[in-house]
């Protein structure tokens, strides 16, 4: 049987494309400043993910009304704050944050969202990926200071994921361990 692509996989694939496009291809390579193993490259990947998410949440908000729209806009605002913090961290390590893409360039790589349900499902998928990325960063970032910053952002991401699940009418946490287990 030919493998089929679920809608969720398609949505996730779109995000991955957008992030990959942010990390390489048209973007200039990162500056030569940071030392290997400093964590700057990982922070750059997180920054690319945040920027794609900022654009994606703008698209999602267009499909929503009332409290759902307000919550998604609030999430988008916090994502902007995360991106600024990551840019500062990259600069603090002697690096230079890549410029990213325009909203239109990001939008071209996202799936077409035709309803509030589409938008919230896409938003949940985005958030799961962001939570996972920050949890992985916690294990990999080399210094306590960088891990503390990642941990603080990760809390916001967990809150956002819970909020989006609540807007979808789902339990706010999928289970006792948002990903993985002790």
């Amino acid at each position, binding site marked *: 049987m030919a493998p089929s692509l679920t809608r969720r996989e398609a949505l996730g694939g779109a995000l991955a494309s957008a992030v990959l496009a942010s990390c390489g291809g048209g973007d200039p390579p990162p500056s030569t400043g940071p030392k290997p193993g400093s964590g700057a490259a990982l922070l750059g990947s997180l920054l690319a993910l945040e920027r794609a998410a900022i654009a994606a949440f703008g698209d999602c908000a267009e499909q929503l009304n009332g409290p759902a729209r307000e919550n998604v806009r609030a999430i988008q605002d916090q994502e902007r704050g995360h991106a600024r913090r990551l840019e500062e961290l990259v600069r603090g390590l002697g690096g230079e944050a890549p410029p990213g893409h325009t909203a239109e360039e990001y939008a071209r790589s996202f799936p077409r969202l035709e309803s509030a349900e589409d938008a919230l499902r896409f938003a949940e998928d985005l958030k799961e990926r962001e939570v996972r990325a920050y949890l992985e960063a916690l294990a990999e970032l080399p210094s306590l200071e960088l891990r503390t910053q990642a941990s603080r952002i*990760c809390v916001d991401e967990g809150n956002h994921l*819970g909020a989006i699940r609540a807007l979808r009418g789902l339990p706010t946490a999928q289970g006792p361990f948002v990903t993985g287990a002790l």
Partner: protein
Amino acid sequence: MARRSDLELLEDLLARENRLLSAYEAALRRDAIDPAVGEMLRDHEREHVRALEQTLAGYARNPRAGVAPPELNAALRSRQSFGRYAIALEGETVAAYTEAAAAIGRPGLRQPLGSIMCCGAAHAVALRQSLGERSFVP
């Protein structure tokens, strides 16, 4: 402040999880929380306690005595007051995980502690929702 050992960090988290577990159990007994929400939160806390105890089994432990905070009784008077109390307690616990997930010496524990931390953040959303708040993002 001196950096805390892994054992101290984990014992602190366990004490906080036990406090949350006791609070949700009491709230369910006293009808101070919506049963569906309370049961979900209680069950998650049980799993967190179990997982931390399992992790601590490998250490020479120095368990802390658990004492119910005096504010709990006052909070149990209504669903509204318990909701506010539980949001604050979840917030303090999430803050403790934020520190522990970054500071713990065993890298293999950082991700799972972060995973519980995110669950705590989602619990606060459930509590805000049960209080009828429109905004879930603090």
